[in-house]
């Protein structure tokens, strides 16, 4: 009797443990499904790859995959991961011909773009699909239109001129790298570059320069580089500063006057 009671108690004990275990599983699973399914549900809605991204993936698989890996995770020694870089970065690199990379060097050389702007958008959409990231605001045009040129000048001189030069002509950096000239660069590209910091450029995220400030800088750069009609002469001497001015005084001024001395002395 005592033995059977003991056995029964053991059986019940085991049954209770099982019930408690099942209950705990149900609670944990329930809690999990309360909190996480929403996340899954949301993502699955956005994660449906759209038509642009599919086209982008096709281009990616033929032109980018050998360096950036088969899903943008990067390959050691060849190319960095593209997860999270966003469409702004992709479009900047592709539209300026820096990607696909012409050759490994100090930094990606600027060449002729290999893709149309539409194709670059598809590529951007695919990279966006892989991991999100920064994008150019849709109202950029309006932002630039309402920008203050003089504010932009102040910001440009503090943040940009130490590499791109006082007149946006670019400048040398160490070990063969350089800050490129800003002439002929579009508003979009300027914004993309500031937002994503391509090559050796620092990233100016929105907490460092607000979108309005970025637009100010764009307005200033376009004013001095692309719209300025060079007060002070026909030739700006490349706006390299005193270096080319020194060259000009010897090549133009001194040369003309040396020929004059020959002429005057030859007239005797």
């Amino acid at each position, binding site marked *: 009797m005592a033995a059977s009671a003991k056995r029964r108690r053991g059986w019940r004990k085991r049954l209770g443990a099982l019930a408690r275990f099942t209950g705990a599983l149900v609670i944990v699973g329930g809690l999990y499904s309360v909190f996480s399914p929403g996340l899954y549900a949301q993502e699955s809605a956005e994660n449906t790859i759209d038509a642009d991204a599919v086209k982008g993936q096709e281009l990616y698989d033929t032109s980018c995959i050998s360096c950036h890996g088969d899903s943008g995770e990067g390959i050691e020694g060849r190319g960095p991961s593209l997860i999270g870089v966003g469409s702004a970065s992709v479009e900047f690199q592709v539209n300026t011909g820096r990607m696909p990379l012409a050759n490994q060097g100090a930094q990606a050389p600027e060449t002729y773009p290999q893709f149309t702007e539409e194709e670059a958008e598809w590529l951007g959409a695919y990279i966006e699909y892989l991991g999100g990231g920064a994008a150019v605001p849709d109202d950029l045009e309006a932002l630039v239109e309402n920008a203050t040129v003089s504010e932009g000048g102040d910001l440009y001189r503090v943040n940009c001129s*130490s590499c791109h*030069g*006082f007149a946006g002509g670019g400048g040398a950096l160490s070990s*063969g790298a*350089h800050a490129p000239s800003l002439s002929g660069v579009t508003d979009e590209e300027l914004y993309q570059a500031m937002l994503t910091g391509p090559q050796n450029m620092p990233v100016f995220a929105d907490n460092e320069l607000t979108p309005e400030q970025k637009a100010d800088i764009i307005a200033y750069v376009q004013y001095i580089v692309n719209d300025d009609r060079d007060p002070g002469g026909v030739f700006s001497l490349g706006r390299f500063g005193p270096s*080319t001015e020194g060259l000009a*005084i010897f090549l133009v001024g001194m040369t003309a006057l040396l020929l004059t001395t020959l002429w*005057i002395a030859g007239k005797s």
Partner: protein
Amino acid sequence: MKRRKGSSDSLLTKAGGELDDRFKLAGPARVLLNKVFPDHWSFLLGEIALFSFILLLLSGTFLALFFEPSMAHVTYEGAYVPLQGIEMTKAYESALDISFEVRGGLFMRQMHHWATLLFMASILVHMLRIFFTGAFRAPRETNWMIGILLFWVGFFEGFFGYSLPDDGLSGTGLRIMEGMTQSVPFIGPWASAALFGGQFPGTSVISMIYIIHVFIFPLILLALITVHVGLVFAQKHTQWPGPGRTEHNVVGFRMFPNYVMKQVGFMLFIWGVIGAMAGLFQINPIWLFGPYEVSVVSSASQPDFYVMYLDGLIRLFPAWELRIPPYFTLPAVFWPAIAGMGLSVLLPLVYPALERRFTKDRGHHNLLQRPRDTPARTSLGVMVVVFWIIGVISGGNDVFAQAFHISLNAMTWAGRIGIVVLPIIAYYVTYRICLGLQQHDREVLAHGLETGILMRDPNGRFYEVHQPLAEPDEHGHTELEYSGWVVPKKMNRVGALEPTDKGFFKSIEEPAENGGAERRDEIESGRK
């Protein structure tokens, strides 16, 4: 004889007579107007500096009417849109106003700047001519030293002018000068504090260097130039050796009318070139640099070219800092900046004395030397020129690196190695070229000119016929002494061929009727 009243001749004569009666002018005027100047293109280089200096005084006076040397802060409300509402100093504001609002102001500013560059460039070229021809030798050492001082006063005068507009570039220049001043042992920090009235940039430096720039240094320059030109008058100009020219005469043209006409024409031409450059080429666009802020340094911030070699030396010099604990530190910048500048002042000043010591040449010299005849001096000069050029390129090495797609680090190392190795190579190569040219002169004097006519012996040997420059001896040699002047090296130089037509754009001579047969017979020696 009674002269007709009212004729211009008699009027002039009368006026001259009246003036002479009162001021005793005839004697000095005769001496001055009859003064003879030798004629050679290389004797006109100093004039470029002189006439650009006059233009500097004129354009500088114009700028001084509108410039306000004040570091008081204002908010810009002028015409240049990208700076509207920006806070800046009055100095920078007035420099912007000169550029954008004063009529002709930008042209005058650019003319002032281009004239400065031309002033310094022509001083350098003039100095090279003096050096390579030995024109600095006794009795003209003093004038050489005055010339060197003129360069250095001009150097600082130019640097101060560059610092006045108080834009980003001039502030950066002043900041570098502050660093250089502070690197001087013991007195450096005190000197810097005195210069800037305390901490950089202070509130007084612009007004202080303004007075130096528009008053003190121009006066010094004017005084030095007066003495410089006066000494050329007093000691008479040097001349090249040649027919009829000795150590004791001057062969050339009189001051009036020939020389004066040429000088006036040349002056107007120089001003024309500066004006054309000021109108065509933008120089120092201060509105792009913005007001000076200590935190703002644009890339490609270079000094003007005459300061650039010092900047280059600073860029090339390794970071060798000397520390003697606990207090003394000698920064690396001291060596290229202060010691380098000191040597660049000192060595040229003492060079004439050094050369006298080494050559033991105590004579007076009024005849110039051809560079090939003094190979050691010529090679030394080329060595310095190569050193200077590498310094200048290194001063702009970031611009060079960017424009020609070269790594900046490679530029620095090429400069470091080049500035040591290339001057030595330049010395050797120049020396060999000088000796080769000398040897060829002697060869032509001994054997005659190459005629280009090839002959063949009966035994088959080919040889070139040479035209001796004098009656040869039985071996076909001529004993002609080298006179220190050009030896004819081509047949048309000795009249064997028709001389080339004269005239700048078209021939101003009628071709000779008989084909110049008579002239062909006459063969002159190099001496005559």
